[in-house]
């Protein structure tokens, strides 16, 4: 009787292992590719969109032929403005964009960390006051040759059937002296789905 029970358990175990899944199956929490659909629905910006926008804009900016040849262009990335109905942290896109810009530019363009200006100023003051050693000092922080401006805007529709959101991500590289637009790029998505998905 005991042997029979053991054998039954063993066979059940083997059966489960062979018949009910793969050895790579995941538990309750699934680790998924960041570009994959999470199957939760929603018509706003997804992680894949953020990654796509950052890559596309960075590749385009890295390919620009700069008017003042020979000089290393200095670009200040301005905070991205989110005018959509979705509660999406614009810094998410900005950070990914800056990372891709630095990677794709391969040292041919200098990007300025304007949102770290207070920290840089504090460091400069402490170095000059003798709290820290001098390090490498410059008279002033770099000024920007160009400003990179980015916006997210949306056209949203809803009815009993569902919702539709067209999201337009636009970027402009503006000459910081003349205000001329040197380059403009955009990316757009249109998604239709059901109501009730919360972005936070």
């Amino acid at each position: 009787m005991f042997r029979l029970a053991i054998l039954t358990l063993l066979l059940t175990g083997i059966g489960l292992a062979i018949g009910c899944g793969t050895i790579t199956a995941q538990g309750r929490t699934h680790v998924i590719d960041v570009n994959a659909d999470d199957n939760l629905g929603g018509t706003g910006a997804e992680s894949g969109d953020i990654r796509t926008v950052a890559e596309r804009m960075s590749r385009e900016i890295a390919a620009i032929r700069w008017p003042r040849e020979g000089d290393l262009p200095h670009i200040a990335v301005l905070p991205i403005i989110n005018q959509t109905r979705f509660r999406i942290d614009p810094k998410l896109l900005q950070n990914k964009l800056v990372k891709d810009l630095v990677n794709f530019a391969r040292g041919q363009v200098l990007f300025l960390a304007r949102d770290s200006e207070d920290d840089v100023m504090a460091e400069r003051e402490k170095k000059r006051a003798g709290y820290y050693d001098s390090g490498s000092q410059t008279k002033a922080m770099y000024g920007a040759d160009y400003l990179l401006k980015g916006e997210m805007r949306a056209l949203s529709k809803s009815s009993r059937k569902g919702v539709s959101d067209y999201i337009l991500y636009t970027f402009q590289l503006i000459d910081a002296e003349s205000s001329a637009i040197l380059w403009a790029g955009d990316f757009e998505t249109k998604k239709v789905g059901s109501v009730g998905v919360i972005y936070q």
Partner: protein
Amino acid sequence: MGEALNGSVTIPTKFGEVYCGQGAVCTEVEVVRVDFEDRDGGRIEVTLHNRTGSQIAVQVGLEVLAANGSRLDSSRFEDVPLQPRQESVFEMPNIYKRGGTIRVSLRTR
């Protein structure tokens, strides 16, 4: 087996190859043509055709490979929606490397 395996498909082309991790994707979506600017930093354009009668979406990724097979550049996967029985062009700027071959990967979302 709990799941039927859907084998991968690699289709050699004159520009390189088309790869589908799930062969069914290559059945539903055809890579009609691949155009590229033959210079470093050139643009690649992939024309896709939805063979089905449904509105579908695939993810497309590009790799540019050297003659020895090493990867010179690659893109992230990107969603491409396709209307029933229609074509759509996926393009990626500043990616081609002169002399490279192009590997187009298609996968489901």
